[in-house]
């Protein structure tokens, strides 16, 4: 409850209706689910974003045109829906004069917010998956985590190489924009890898009983089950049910993020699972910043950070880099300056790129990591630093 009291104190201090701000503060927006079934994504993202703001302020703030600004992150609950995403984003934009959203989670709300931000000249950083949110028609949108185009080809290739006998795959995804986009991309990449897609199933995010789905999967006898964008807690439950019902095959979670929750829910059934987004922020390849953040999150949130949470931190850092590179607070100028900049984020030095894939350089270049659960531990199987990033860093 201490956080609650602190927030209350803060609100009382800053006034009632619209928290007034000191002149030299930049307000950054975060739009993420803070309630409901996906709340843990939003709450972790909010926390990581606040940490980034603290780091920046502790280090003296952001300098623009000779003036120093403090930053403040305001997170709003998009409830994972387009409508609430839109409404809360409008409040941040029109009331709090937010010019940059440093992280936005959930494809449906992000698509909604994007319609607004692109029109009103506002910068949007997002972890939304789909190709449909990127490209030349969205010059002010930047993606700050790896997405199917980066991750899927390497992970599927790894699976194919280690299990040459597999012929077909069955996919399960949450029934929403994120899941549908994932399924679409996954179908493409599996087919390119020479694997037949038997079926592509969906489930509602609020589902708690996965037995009927598991029965359905098992009856089709797939060689591989790809849980795509299924959140780790649900994925673990599905894997456990699959094991109970006697299925033994190759387990893949293309867009799998948190591995400790997966292990806790799946138990031994999670062993052997390949994941595309499950960076281990405690492991030997994690940076110092990531390890510290992760330790902090475990203490405060009782949860390890995942890639989407980390996107909250990286979004704020990228925003700072963009502002300083442009030496301006104008989103247009920042968007022009960002692709040229090389800057510090939680992964170390990073930059935006991938123009050859998307048509515009708006994809954050960070290491692509394929991990596998082995005896309950997350083990890196493949680690690819994008060639483009190497080039930009002069390696």
């Amino acid at each position, binding site marked *: 409850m201490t*956080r609650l009291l602190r927030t209350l104190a803060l609100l009382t201090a800053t006034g009632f209706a619209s928290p007034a701000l000191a002149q030299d503060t930049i307000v950054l927006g975060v739009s993420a689910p803070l309630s409901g079934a996906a709340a843990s994504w939003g709450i972790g993202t909010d926390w990581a974003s606040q940490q980034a703001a603290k780091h920046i302020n502790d280090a003296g703030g952001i300098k623009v045109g000779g003036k120093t600004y403090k930053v403040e992150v305001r997170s709003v609950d998009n409830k994972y829906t387009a409508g609430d995403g839109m409404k809360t984003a409008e409040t941040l934009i029109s009331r709090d004069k937010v010019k940059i959203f440093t992280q936005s989670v959930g494809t449906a709300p992000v698509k909604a917010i994007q319609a607004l931000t692109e029109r009103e000249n506002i910068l949007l950083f997002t972890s939304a998956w789909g190709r449909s949110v990127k490209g030349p028609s969205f010059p002010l949108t930047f993606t700050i985590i790896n997405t199917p185009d980066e991750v899927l080809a390497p992970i599927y290739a790894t699976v194919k190489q280690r299990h040459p006998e597999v012929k077909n795959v069955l996919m399960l995804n949450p029934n929403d924009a994120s899941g549908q986009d994932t399924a679409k991309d996954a179908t493409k990449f599996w087919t390119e890898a020479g694997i037949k897609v038997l079926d592509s199933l969906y489930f509602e995010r609020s589902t*708690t009983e996965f037995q009927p789905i598991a*029965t359905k999967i098992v009856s089709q006898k797939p060689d591989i089950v790809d849980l795509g964008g299924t959140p780790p807690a649900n994925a673990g439950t599905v894997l456990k049910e699959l094991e*109970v*019902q006697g299925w033994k095959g190759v387990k893949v979670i293309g867009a799998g993020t948190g591995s400790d929750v997966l292990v806790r829910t799946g138990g031994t059934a999670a062993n052997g699972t390949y994941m595309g987004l499950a960076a281990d922020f405690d492991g030997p390849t994690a940076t110092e910043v990531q390890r510290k953040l992760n330790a902090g999150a475990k203490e405060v949130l009782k949860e390890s950070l995942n890639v989407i949470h980390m996107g909250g931190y990286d979004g704020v850092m990228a925003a700072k880099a963009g502002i300083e590179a442009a030496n301006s607070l104008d989103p247009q100028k920042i968007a022009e300056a960002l692709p040229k900049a090389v800057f510090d984020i939680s992964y170390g030095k990073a930059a935006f790129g991938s123009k050859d894939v998307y048509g515009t350089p708006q994809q954050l270049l960070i290491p692509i990591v394929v991990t596998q659960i082995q005896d309950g531990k997350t083990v890196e199987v493949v680690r690819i630093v994008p060639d483009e990033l190497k080039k930009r860093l002069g390696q």
Partner: protein
Amino acid sequence: MDLAAQLLVNTLQIGSVYVLFALGLTLIFGVMKIVNFAHGEFFSLAALVVAVLMPVLAPALGLPLWVDFLIALAAAIGAVLVLGTLTYWIGFERYLRDLVGSFILSVGLILFLQGVFVEIFTATPRPVEPIVTGTISIFGGRITAQRLLIVALAITFTAMLYLVLQRTKLGKALRAVAEDREAAMLQGIRYRSISFYGWLIGVSMAGLAGALIAPLTVSQPAIGGDYLIKAFIIIIIGGLGSIPGAIFGGLLVALIESIFGYYYDLTIATIIMFVLVMVFLLVRPQGLMGHVER
């Protein structure tokens, strides 16, 4: 794997928890004539308490896991009773037999309690280690020993509730009040205290369901919502206030979920249930098992 057997096994294990949850809801309706939309929050609370205690108890006590589970279950019911007493005294007592007032109160409670639960338990999904391991085959349908244990417990609790209602003085009073409040009051039954006990038993059933589901799934503060919608369908089909109706409805809903979830998908299954409810209401507005009114 024999498909029919597997689907039936699925039905039984899904249904047993639905039945418990819906029993509480229908009992509260019968006695208080309100629909407790906050029922899911009691479910969530119990699930969260079990999910939080299990990993703590095991190393601290060094007892067999099933003993830990029983302790956690008792603690969960304790928490539910405390919350139930508070919400009754502060709120529901004033909204007995007021459908609209209690509805809005319970919806306010949903929002409020979810906020509080996120604050206390965090939004992180919490799994629980298996209490017993192993898989058992029933006529070719496979079920974990864990789930079998849960099903057995759910059936036991349902039977206990049934016995309490049929045999005890309190149970008879509860049924009398549900049947005809005024007649019951004429016989000297104190409605207010009876409705309080009815409420506590009702929310405890939700709590039991939540505590039992905790080892089978991952618990987080929003977990009750999915069960709530299913439970509404169950009690409409079974007839509001009808105990046998809730049992029948719970198993029917689980069967539909199991079969249609297999052949189509779970959302289609839910839509089918809703359509079924519409048809039921058309044919028999008082539900399948409801009393025929003169």
